[in-house]
């Protein structure tokens, strides 16, 4: 099960994932990301520090938004990935295509760069 909350502050939509993102719960992740994509107003920062497991379906959701957010000029950054989760991203090569940082501060810095 997963619990996904979105907090809006300034120009940032902070999406906090708590739990596992598998085939069934990935639809909630898709929902919250799609929400931001249609609003086009905020940069998207995803807090993965409480993301314990991600299946290929979850990776598929992240992957599908890389190009989408580029198209709307919304910055898209993930932070706080555990070693295990980060490894999964790297294995698939997603680290080459999206920004993965350690802390929330780094993420906010990235968002506020030009």
């Amino acid at each position, binding site marked *: 099960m997963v619990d996904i909350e979105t907090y809006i502050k300034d120009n940032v939509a902070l999406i906090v994932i708590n739990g596992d993102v598998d*085939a069934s719960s*990935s639809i909630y992740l*898709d929902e919250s990301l799609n929400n931001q994509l249609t609003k086009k107003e905020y940069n998207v920062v995803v807090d993965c520090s409480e993301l314990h497991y991600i299946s*290929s*379906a979850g*990776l*598929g*959701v992240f*992957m*599908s938004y*890389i*190009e989408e957010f580029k198209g709307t000029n919304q910055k898209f950054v993930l932070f706080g990935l555990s070693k*295990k989760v980060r490894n999964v991203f790297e*294995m*698939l*090569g*997603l680290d*080459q*295509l999206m920004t993965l940082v350690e802390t929330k501060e780094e993420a906010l810095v990235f968002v506020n760069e030009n």
Partner: protein
Amino acid sequence: MAWLSLSVVDITNQFSAGNNIDSGFHDRLPNFLFLIYVIALFTFYKARVAVADRLNLIELLWRIFVTGMLTTVVSLGIRSLDLVFGGTQLIKNVLVVDFLFLINLGLLTAFLIATFVVWKRLILYQKNKRLLVSWSIFEYILFGSILLDFAYIPGKEYFQIIVVAMGLIVSVNMKWVAFLSFKQKWKSILLLLLTLLYLIYFYMNLASYRNSYEFLSILSNSMFIRSAFVFTSSYAIFSLLVIVFNLPTTSVFEQKLKEVVNFQRISQSIQTEKNEEQVLEILLESAVRTVEATAAWIEVKSTDKLFLDKISADKVHSVKSDFSAAGLSFRQKIQSNENKKTGVYGKVRVEEYRSVAYFPIWVNDVQEGMLYLLKDVRDGFSKELLEIIETFTNQAGISIANFRMLNEAIATERYKEELKIAKQVQAKLLPVALASNNHFNISSFTMAADEVGGDYYDSYKISESKTALIIADVSGKGTSAAFHMAQMKGVFLALSQMDVSPTEFVERSNLAISLGLDKTSFVTISYFVIDTTFKTIVFARAGHVPSIYYSASEKTASYFKNKGLGLGIIRSANFKEHVQQTSITYQPGDVLVLYTDGITEAQNKHQEEFGYDRLLRLVEEHSTKDDSIIQEKIIEAVYAFCDNELLEDDYSLVVVKFK
């Protein structure tokens, strides 16, 4: 047949009656013939009633009435003959009088037996064992009384009393009365009165014969006829009284019966050909009928759909807005307990409506809709009826829940069937054996989880010295995964025989496979080309879990950590920037291990993953053994780690051992 026997017996009776006076023949012959006559009639009517098994109660009474009318009319005809020829010598003839009397007696017997058979049906309308036993005792002694007529036996009168008493005991059973509707009861009263009238007529008729003529056949004193007469008439009187007293309560009984029927309709509406809407329609109709509502509707929350009865959709909206504006001036819950699910009723003053009741329709603890009932009189709903509507509503909820469950079960069944097909397809896509030669041996193992996954591995002999090897994992499960896996196999067979480099293979297959993938799906592969002439392995990784290579000379195993990107993630030409091609030289005794993430992500009951380290150590430990042994040992270890529980994902393993 029966009529034939009747006429035959009648003629014989006449004949024997004549003999009675001549005193020539055996004087018990008339009794014997009478017995045959009774039995014939009894079987005849019994057969008629049995054929009409599905007759309703009124029709049974109607039959008696018709038989009674026929017999009375014939009897009256004889009487009128008597009047016309009254005083003539002919009518004074003993033989003729006796003959006429016998005909009358015969008619009475026919009528009595017809009535008797019908009464039997009525008494045994709702039978139980005790009733059946007492009825058969009664029947036996009644027919036994015919035999008693044969001779004079002392104490015969007492026996008569027993028969009559027995008749009265069984006469108490008149449950059938309760099942008559109001109209049917009136009809029954009329028919019973007429039946009684016939009986009285026959009684008077025969009595007058007996008074006028002293010399009649001994049958005139038959105990059987007397007993049957008493029984039929007393049952008729009893039934009449019971029906009369039952008349005022009939409407209540009918109401209850209607409720039961409505209840049944709701429960039965879960049959597959009915749908949820029909369940709601039946609920609405039954509720309106039960409380005689002036107007009613059901609103379905999820779809905003309205089911209307005697009210238009516009009016529903105006009435509802008035509800919220004026509020209900008085409201009370139908169930007094804390049950939140109960309906509410109260007074209201909207348009012409003065009282309202509404009931939430619950399906599996979710409120699916609301049933509204309106009446144009104040306090129009009685609490008892509202409780019944509440049970209707609950039943409708259960029916809908059952209906959904049934549909889900069907859908699951269909899905399972689909998975079975997908599994079969997937199994056929995997090779039976991989290409081994005198430079290396390959062993493989795969196991699909409950759901169909998308693990794929294959080999292709490009030339005498070159062999292509692939392992792939399609994201997602089910039929779509199997479908993508089939595409991957096609791409592999097409590209590998063109002898392309691993980078080119990955790049081209990305272009090819991306077109068929939806935006959240991807395929990870590792592609190897083994060249036995130069003893090299050239490979590229596209997002797949890194393969393990054991070097026999260094005695260590390690992962191929080259850069890679899964197929289908980016669909542009710059894909190759994210992929790296590596080439190594192999030595005899080296081991190459390909696998899918089902192995490294296999979990034990403490949610621990099997992991990369464990796999690496296993390869090192068993590296000197044959490829098939290495493969077996790894699978055994994974199983042991998971306590032999079923794995959630598919997992595949390919072991290449170089000679």
